[in-house]
């Protein structure tokens, strides 16, 4: 602060330096006049008194100098001089300046845009108090290589009671709430949370209070905290809402609090207390994992200590409950790391890639500067001859390049502003909502400082080498001639090195982009196992109180399905608890007649509950046996259909049809279901996922609460939305239809991040290609100009156009080939860093490496061809007279 004030005073002083000089002189005149008067009063003659006053005062000129120096004016003055001169030089070469500024603006702008995303998502602290102390706690099974599994209620309760490392520990699970009342029924994302959830995050409700510990108990848990947005939108920011009742899922909840406006925890609008039932707390329930856990470290406790403590407790639990907990431990991960884990690798690869683009841009501008240096050689030699020191000239040239990069940076900032906006909008809300900080991406002070910093750095990087080169001219040579002496040759070498570097960097980038594009293609060709086109999907919820009994759920779905099937344009309709490309749920099961499996080899499979037309609707092939029929209802023999993956894994050498399985573990007394059919595998978790073992249950025998309606249509699937919504409202006027979409939209959304990576890296690669092509073109053009005389002589001696062409192109291509060689080696080392982003292609895929290398060589070839053709048009007579 103090330093800043000092700087400010200096600047103020600089702006008013003339006034300052005048004032100081006036002050001195006043002083001497007063002194002379005093001397006169003491008896000197007037003239004597004046001289004495001057003598007593000392060297006036020196004092003025000293004062000025003290304000640091000299260095500011030279800097401003340099900048002014630099600006003049840049304006004198508008072509050069324009190309350089645009190149830099693209490079800096892209870097700023990507950095603004990286900053918001990875670097900005989470908006909770002391966010670095927040930890995510998971179950893990290290032998099975899974480290981030949800937690069972009894395990959580034990951890919470026994740990010595956390101030607060809170479990939560997603839930959905249908808000009914005055308006239309509306569906909201909710969270069931332990009572101390808000304390754990360090957040105080803006209105009312957080939950009380006793509100975790059944009977007292009909209370809710509402999100700020919901409170404003649905309740008109009613300040008296606290204490009033709202209807959630058909039951009455008392609102006890409203979150602050800036509070955000995923896209959640309704919080209710999490209550564990006796069943959820039973010993067997240790095998039912459904909760996420967040905890706050005690002061002074390290991550390692927390990990150890939770592991120790887990081992005690493991010894006591080996059936459910063998091989299962607790795992502690810093919360921020946990939530950005998925997006982090892509962002880092993008940041690296965009950094390469900037380096290429730097090389290109350095190249331009070197080319221009030839024409400035004489100017600089003159300045040197007149006594300018080398440092002074380097400083002058550097001021020019920094000026250039600052202008480029300014323009780049505009580009970034616009680019970041496109980036944000390119991401669908389902990803944006769950990516912390995504909504806050923008140009903020941190991003501005970043831009300023890289602009300055860029100016230094591309400016320094040319400045050093140019500033040590061979005086006599330079003054005499147009730059064909040794300095000219050296400069040529520097330019060639730059072009090789550019080619190499561009190749690395292009190979990265190529690998992503190939991954994406592979992903598009993945066998889905079903036909996603012309399929409509939407969600309904059976969480409300009136669907507590199974017959009510079955009845509701049946009624809705009948209506949907009758809607015009519907080929077939079905219901499924969790449609493909939504979320997943797996269950352990037991095969009747087999010995009890080892605890770490208990079979499990994805669990789907469907209506009979499901396979027909999605066109999933029936491999053997039969599909479900309307006769598979409660009371009829219990049946199940499995997929081929399950059949292959758990019935390798036998016919599964007719075999019996039950949900749950060996000793659990659950009803047996007979396998009646085998269907084809489908991708459920994403295009890049495996075919998981899967079983299907008929909804009329084994209902599930969450449900989606899927329908195959003849026309545009989305045109069905209104019809389905009406069908649902006809059956239950308090039931909202949510997330109406097509299957193809869901699949496309699932690869958004990959697509975005691919597009961005593709853009960076294309830019790199263009820049390096311009780079090699520039160098070859210059070379041709330099070689005009030589070419003329050759042609006079009988060389044909073909020979000339070959010679020039050959020279250029040898540069390109060196660049490509180095680039291939670099890419070989670097692409493995992006392995997690690839699918179906190795980081060292020979086809990509080869193809991209050829592409780059081809572009370089054409870039060389243009100057080479110009060389063939050299008229020997003119050339020999050249200069």
């Amino acid at each position, binding site marked *: 602060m103090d330093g800043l004030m000092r700087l400010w*005073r200096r600047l103020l002083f600089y702006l008013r330096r003339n006034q300052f000089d005048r004032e100081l002189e*006036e002050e001195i005149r006043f002083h001497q006049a007063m002194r002379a008067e005093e001397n006169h009063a003491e008896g000197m003659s007037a003239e004597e008194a004046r001289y004495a006053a001057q003598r007593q005062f000392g060297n006036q000129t020196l*004092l003025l100098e000293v004062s000025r120096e003290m304000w640091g004016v000299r260095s500011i003055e030279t800097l401003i001089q340099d900048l002014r001169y630099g600006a003049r030089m840049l304006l004198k070469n508008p072509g050069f300046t324009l190309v350089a500024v645009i190149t830099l603006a693209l490079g800096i702008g892209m870097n700023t845009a990507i950095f603004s995303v990286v900053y918001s998502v990875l670097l900005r602290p989470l908006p909770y108090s002391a966010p670095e102390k927040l930890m995510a706690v998971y179950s893990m099974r290290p032998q099975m290589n899974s480290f981030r599994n949800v937690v069972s209620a009894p395990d959580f309760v034990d951890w919470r009671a026994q740990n010595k490392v956390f101030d607060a520990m809170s479990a939560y699970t997603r839930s959905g709430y249908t808000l009914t009342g005055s308006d239309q029924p509306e569906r909201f994302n909710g969270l069931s949370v332990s009572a101390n959830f808000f304390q754990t995050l360090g957040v105080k409700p803006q209105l009312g209070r957080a939950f009380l510990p006793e509100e975790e108990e059944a009977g007292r848990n009909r209370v809710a905290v509402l999100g700020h947005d919901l409170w404003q939108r649905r309740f008109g920011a009613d300040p008296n809402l606290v204490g009033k009742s709202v209807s959630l899922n058909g039951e009455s909840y008392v609102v006890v609090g409203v979150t602050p406006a800036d509070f955000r925890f995923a896209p959640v609008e309704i919080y209710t207390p999490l209550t564990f039932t006796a069943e959820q707390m039973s010993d067997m329930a240790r095998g039912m994992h459904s909760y996420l856990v967040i905890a706050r470290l005690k002061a002074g406790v390290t991550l390692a200590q927390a990990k150890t403590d939770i592991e120790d407790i887990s081992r005690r639990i493991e010894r006591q409950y080996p059936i459910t907990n063998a091989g299962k431990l607790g795992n502690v991960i810093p919360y921020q790391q946990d939530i950005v884990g998925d997006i982090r690798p892509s962002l880092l690869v993008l940041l690296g890639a965009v950094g390469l683009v900037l380096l290429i841009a730097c090389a290109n501008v350095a190249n331009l500067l070197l080319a221009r240096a030839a024409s400035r050689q004489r100017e600089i030699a003159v300045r040197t001859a007149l006594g300018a020191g080398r440092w002074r000239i380097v400083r002058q040239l550097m001021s020019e390049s920094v000026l250039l990069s600052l202008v480029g940076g300014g323009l780049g900032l505009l580009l970034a502003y616009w680019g970041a906006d496109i980036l944000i909008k390119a991401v669908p809300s389902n990803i944006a909502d769950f990516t912390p900080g995504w909504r806050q991406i923008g140009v903020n002070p941190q991003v501005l400082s970043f831009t300023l910093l890289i602009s300055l750095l860029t100016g230094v990087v591309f400016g320094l080498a040319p400045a050093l080169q140019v500033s040590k001219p061979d005086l006599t040579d330079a003054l005499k001639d147009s730059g064909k002496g040794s300095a000219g040759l050296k400069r040529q070498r520097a330019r060639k090195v730059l072009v090789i570097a550019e080619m190499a960097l561009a190749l690395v980038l292009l190979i990265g982009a190529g690998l992503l594009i190939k991954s994406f293609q592979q992903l598009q060709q993945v066998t889905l196992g079903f036909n996603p086109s012309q399929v409509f999907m939407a969600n309904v919820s059976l969480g409300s109180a009136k669907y507590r009994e199974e017959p009510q759920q079955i009845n509701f779905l049946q009624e809705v399905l009948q209506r949907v099937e009758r809607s015009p344009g519907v080929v077939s309709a079905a219901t499924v608890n969790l449609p493909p490309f939504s979320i997943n749920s797996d269950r352990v099961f037991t095969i009747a007649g087999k010995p009890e499996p080892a605890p770490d080899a208990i079979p499990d499979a994805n669990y789907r509950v469907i209506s009979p037309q499901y396979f027909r609707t999605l066109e999933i092939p029936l491999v053997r046996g039969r599909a479900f029929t309307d006769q598979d209802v409660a009371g009829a023999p219990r049946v199940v259909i499995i997929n081929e993956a399950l059949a292959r894994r758990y019935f390798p050498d036998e016919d599964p049809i007719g075999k019996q399985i039950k949900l749950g573990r060996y000793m659990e007394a659950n009803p047996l279901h007979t396998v009646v059919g085998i269907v084809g595998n489908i991708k459920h978790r994403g295009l890049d996922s495996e075919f998981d073992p899967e079983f299907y249950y008929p909804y009329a025998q084994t209902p599930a609460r969450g449900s989606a309606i899927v329908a195959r249509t003849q026309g545009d699937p989305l045109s069905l939305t209104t019809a389905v919504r009406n069908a649902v409202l006809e059956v239950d006027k308090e039931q909202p239809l949510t997330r109406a979409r097509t299957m193809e939209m869901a699949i496309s959304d699932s690869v958004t991040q990959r697509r975005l990576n691919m597009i961005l890296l593709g853009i960076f690669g294309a830019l790199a290609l263009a820049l390096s092509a311009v780079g090699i073109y520039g160098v070859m053009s210059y070379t041709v100009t330099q070689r005009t005389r030589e070419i003329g002589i050759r042609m006079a001696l009988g060389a044909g156009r073909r020979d000339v062409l070959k010679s020039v192109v050959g020279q250029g291509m040898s540069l390109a080939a060196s660049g490509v060689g180095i680039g291939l080696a670099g890419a070989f080392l670097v692409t493995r860093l992006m392995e997690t982003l690839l699918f179906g292609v190795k980081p060292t895929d020979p086809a990509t490496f080869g193809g991209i290398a050829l592409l780059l060589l081809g572009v370089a070839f054409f870039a060389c061809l243009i100057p080479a053709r110009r060389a063939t048009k050299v008229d020997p007579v003119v050339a020999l007279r050249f200069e």
Partner: protein
Amino acid sequence: MEKDKTRKKAEMVPGTLEMLILKTLERNREPMHGYGVAQYLRRTTSDVLQVEEGSLYPALQRLAINGWVKAEWGQSEKNHRARFYKLTPAGRRRLKQEVADFERVLEAILRVVQPAGGAS
């Protein structure tokens, strides 16, 4: 000749000029112009400390840069335009610190120079 001059002039200890200016401004309470400061220093030290009067001005500038004094134009006693300097709160703190430092150094020097057991 050389020696004579040194003795008579009693050169300023480096850095003390600023302290003296600050002290002068503090003691005087009212803002003072440069000439007033010079006059005051000359009179109170009975010419023992001979300051080249011009060197006051760079010193005053330095104090201004650091925000220890504030300069304003005003009318002198004889209705001339003159620049008046005023001590700022930061300057007051600075003075306190400089005086303390100076006293510590002086005490140390005296301890060396004075005969043992003399004063205490």
